[in-house]
């Protein structure tokens, strides 16, 4: 049928018309307010010229020379792992202070709201322990005391999350019960907003005095299943907790969706701390936005040069696929690694504030 030869082109044109972001005039605050779907035209222009620069700079450079990594064998094929270590110090936490604060929060007991708590305090009940024999609240109070005395962070997260907002410091504070090696920091780069391949997985872990970022970078789309499997392996083992920035809405469901796509079992359900939520509660209104890039520069003074805006990662990666020039991958890999590192730093910073550093 004569239609076929043109069908690929036809769909390509239709896809090109479906931009998942729009470019707005600089300073158009209204346009930029539509979370993440807009780019200022100066950012866009800068990224386009970066792309052109990369293509000429890395023309002919081999993949291996730019991204020396180790191949990882999985049951679903091979993928490449790039490893990066940097010195990293985790604050020592004073978990005792948080425990005391929680014990003093009478509203953790089911049936006690702010007003009842005030009344009870006026009658001399200072901590939940004081309610252990209260005629009305003793059962509920004992339940809470059991939870607090047991070092299971999930129980504490549930308790705090059910009585307070999910972004309450007590919920974050439950992380204090984990060892620093238990945390898996995750950030992904994709070809779009859902239902398309993930092209880069950044996984950070604390190993001794170092922070190690392992990045599974797809040399081609056919390595996605292997990379997903490599990622899943990080969640097996005794005690694990996932830490992301906006991962509750994006990274984790995206990963689960892609696993389902390939028929690979979902990653194990582990406690998940989404730093975005805690950051919003902590800094809302202080900075123009609570985007990761905004916070890392405001809190830690991090500056990114030659960064690729997140929305433009798909076209950078597509350019690599089309031209086989690895240049466009350079800022994607750097961007992703920085995201993982900043997520971890923000997480420990907030956790330190919550628990109190020693």
């Amino acid at each position, binding site marked *: 049928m004569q239609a076929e030869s043109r069908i690929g082109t036809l769909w*390509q044109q239709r896809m090109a018309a479906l931009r*998942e972001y729009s470019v707005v005039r600089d300073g158009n605050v209204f346009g930029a307010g539509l979370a993440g779907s807009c780019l200022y035209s100066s950012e866009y222009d800068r990224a386009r010229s970066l792309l052109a620069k990369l293509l000429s700079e890395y023309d002919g450079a081999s993949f291996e020379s730019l991204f020396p990594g180790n191949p990882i064998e999985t049951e679903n094929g091979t993928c490449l792992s790039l490893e990066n270590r940097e010195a990293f110090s985790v604050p020592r936490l004073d978990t005792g202070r948080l425990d005391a604060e929680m014990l003093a929060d009478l509203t953790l007991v089911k049936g006690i709201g702010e007003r009842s708590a005030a009344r009870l305090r006026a009658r001399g009940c200072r901590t939940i322990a004081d309610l252990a024999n209260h005629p009305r609240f003793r059962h509920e109070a004992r339940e809470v005391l059991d939870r607090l005395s047991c070092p299971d962070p999930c129980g504490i997260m549930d308790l705090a999350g059910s009585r307070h907002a999910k972004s309450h410091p007590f919920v974050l504070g439950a992380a204090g019960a984990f060892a620093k090696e238990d945390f898996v920091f995750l950030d992904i780069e994709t070809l779009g907003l859902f*239902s*398309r*391949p993930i092209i880069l997985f950044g996984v950070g872990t604390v190993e001794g005095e170092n922070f190690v970022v392992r990045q599974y970078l797809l040399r081609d789309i056919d390595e996605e299943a292997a990379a997903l499997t490599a990622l899943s392996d990080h969640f097996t083992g005794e005690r694990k907790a996932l830490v992301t920035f906006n991962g509750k809405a994006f990274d984790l469901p995206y990963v689960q969706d892609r*696993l389902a796509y390939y028929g690979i079992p979902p990653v194990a359900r582990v406690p998940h701390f989404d730093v975005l939520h805690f950051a919003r509660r902590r800094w809302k209104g202080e900075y123009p936005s609570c985007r990761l890039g905004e916070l890392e520069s405001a809190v830690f003074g991090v500056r990114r040069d030659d960064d690729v805006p997140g929305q433009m990662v798909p076209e950078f990666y597509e350019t690599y696929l089309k031209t086989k020039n690895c240049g466009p991958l350079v800022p994607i890999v750097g961007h992703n690694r920085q995201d993982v590192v900043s997520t971890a730093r923000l997480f420990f910073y907030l956790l330190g504030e919550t628990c109190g550093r020693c």
Partner: protein
Amino acid sequence: MAVADVVHLIGTNPVYRSRVACHNIAEPEPAAYGTLDRPLPDALAAYLAHAGIRLYTHQCEAVNLLREEKNVIITTPTASGKTLAFNLPVFERMAADPDARALYLYPTKALANDQLVTLLAMEKFTGISVKPAIYDGDTPQSKRSAIREHARIVISNPYELHQVLSWHGKWSPFFANLEYVVLDEAHKYRGIFGSQIALLVRRLRRVARYYGADPQFVLSSATLANPEEFAAKLTGLPFVQVGSDGSPRGKRHFVLYNPFYDGVGERSAHQESKDLFVSCVKGDLQALCFAGSRKIAELVSLWAKEDLRRSSARLAESVLAYRAGYLPEERRLIESRLKNREIRGVVSTNALELGIDIGSLDAVVIDGYPGTMMSVRQQAGRAGRKAGESLAVLVAQANPLDQYFMHHPDEFFARPHEHAIIDTGNPYIVSGHILCAAAELPLHEEKDREFFGGELSPVLADLAESRLLSRTPRGFVYAGRGRAAEAVTLDGMAAESFRILCEGRVLETMDRAQVYREAHKGAIMLHQGVTYVVNEMDLATHTVRVSETDVDYYTQPLKDTDLSILETLRTCDINGVTCAFGDVEVTERYTAYKIKKGDTVLGVEPLDLPPITFRTKAFWLVVPETIAAPVFSAGLDLAGGLHGAEHALIALMPLFVLCDRWDIGGLSSPAFGENGEPVIFVYDGYEGGIGLAEKAYTLLPELFTRTHGMVRDCTCKKGCPSCIYSPKCGNDNVPLDKEATVMILAGLAAASAGNAAVPETAGSLPGAGPVAQ
């Protein structure tokens, strides 16, 4: 008064009597009750007993077949209890298997709401926990995950399913246990839209298969010429039809009513429809009047209210308008008030033609032939109680098609049902769904051929070449930039919604074409009988501001349609006629509007609106002097001949390219372009084209020969609905000249116009048979 009295009035009142072209009476039919192969579970039997329901033959037949795990298409008329026929076996299965799930798909949201109410009532009475829920664009985010996990009957629509399939991971318990899929009002899924749905159904079956499920399908549909073939095409599965109706029918009167019986017509058909409708309401009947457009529905309702107010204010209050564009709450209120008999009459667009449960009415007035016999029967079927008489009146417009039926009532009543045509091989459509399927699960060239047919391999190669798919060891993986389900639109229409605001309150919503037609600056808009004038139309913000007004006139826009050739891609010569295929742009301009009171034009005001343009693919033919000259010299009308030939080509094209005639547009001109040549265009009714004109272009010689034979052999004298009258003509079938048409088609087919001895070709084509378009 009763139906008989109104029928008597129509038969004796001199004004009415003279306009009756035919009065057809269908004698009452008693109920035919059936038996089930084995009894229903107690809870369901008790439910039927409580509701006083005894099952008719067709319901039993459907239940028996569904229990045998057959796929069933039920085609009995409106209000014959089709819904119960599939709800019973679904509930039975749900009771027997606590994990079983079912998916009910409806073409509109209003129908989904209706079904939810029914299912909730059945669940409550029987205690069989089916947890029905609607999952569509209006479902709040917060409720979605609970519905996915707990609802056992999910009610949705094709547009939502199209989006949902790529999220199958979240729906895995649902798909893994999917036992029934119900497609209600399935006749809506025909032509190009039907072809899109057919591929969507294949994607659904593919995802279900992945989770180990192989659901059974139930289709409910208006009566069709080819139900089993249609159902099999739509789903890719074998089907059994249940079509012989066992429900009782009272005596039914069907009147063909011609306001133009004297060739002049004192008043418009709309005014006459209003009179009949008012007579029904005054005669104590519950009546429904179907109007051809939203505006006419509002006008007829307004006029009827005015008339009724003269005899009783209360009676005037009992008449309402109903149409798309009303807010859902407003519509639901009208539906329930109609059902509870709190209101006497509703003037509606075809929105009430579908199976929304409004109970059965006494009388239906159809203001103009609605375009298909399927619609006539669906609309007329709204009248008819189980016992007692009912009345349906078709009021003819002045156009030749309606008039033809008035003069040939026997043909009208004997007219065959329409064929519902579906093409699962259209490369444009298949390729889009292959992209979506590859975004749902990796595609396997061998395994998935079952779903996508012979087109799969070449399309896969082409899409991989364009990097939209990536070839991996696990199959083809979607890797395009945009979301596949977003790039593929099921009905080919960009959803642009304009809000109509009155003092800051949203009165209704409209799409762009409607806003141009009905809500341009200065337009008088009607909403539930209240008159509004449009003060401002802001195209940039998609907002129209109106204010209430008190005028007794209404407005009617004047439209020009124009076509220009953008690029000629191919040309050829067929029997000395230059034929071409290429890109065209169709432009519609609203240039002015008429101010009318009743049927009188009070004035014409200019309009300044940007044109609506639409690019598509067309084939066209330039009629040479050798064909045109003899038409002139015979004293015939060339324009009428070209127009007739255009209609006839469009009428037969669906047999060659597998679509519905409503998917194709046409335009003819005796003097087109700079050279002023006579030209006929036939184009795809979809932005960008969808392969119809393209395929027809390769089949032109056969199309010409067949079309010529069809018109020449038609026994009518001046044209009829079976040859050159089109039910969707924008110019009301004017001008038409059958003799000139035959001469032109003969030239195209290089045949002699007078030669009747051409071998019979019917039957040699797939789907050829009675042309019931």
